[in-house]
């Protein structure tokens, strides 16, 4: 599946998007664990619940199974308008 990062999250991941293998990550909670291991600097933001998640351009709060075609986005609170 494709993971996209926005705003200052990109400064931590050093990339805008990446493909993640479904074998490692089955659902949103699994993804959270996976990326905090991969990017330890994300951990404190994960703990503070600062990060927002979207699956296929819809906000997701509860744990959800992920499929290979999903586009996941991880980003900080928005500041549009």
């Amino acid at each position: 599946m494709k993971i996209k990062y926005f705003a200052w999250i990109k400064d931590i991941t050093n990339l805008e998007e990446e493909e993640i293998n479904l074998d490692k990550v089955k659902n949103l909670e699994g993804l959270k664990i996976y990326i905090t291991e991969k990017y330890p600097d994300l951990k404190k933001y994960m703990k503070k619940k600062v990060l927002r998640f979207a699956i296929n351009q819809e906000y997701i709060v509860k744990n959800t199974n992920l499929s290979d075609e999903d586009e996941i986005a991880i980003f900080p609170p928005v500041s549009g308008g």
Partner: protein
Amino acid sequence: MIKIQKEDFNSEVEINKIKKLHSNVGAVSSFIGYVRDENNNKAVRSINLEVYQEMAHKQFEKIINEANLKWKLEDSLIIHRYGKLEVNSKIVLVACFSKHRKESFESCNFIMDYLKKDAPFWKNEFYGDKNEWLSNSN
């Protein structure tokens, strides 16, 4: 009508384009947001506004659908810019078209509330040689 674009827009032209489709519209309420020269007591030079385009489109459609469930609107318009924007540049235009005033006022405010809360845009403000990512307070 939803537009997510780098370019500036002319609010008169954009509103007229829609208004001329609806002779029963008597009321257009609109909001324009601009880049201010100051924020949190710091002098702002410009901002860089990042967007998650596909999601912004989807969220704007959702907001407009919600507004149409709550009010009798004849039409509505959201234009949101992204990219590098200097002080005094327009950022966003929301316009709501209805027969009477109340509907257009309330729905325009509602759309702006929702947009500030949910639309996937991120402001990176530049002050002198520093910059800072913002988040909306509400």
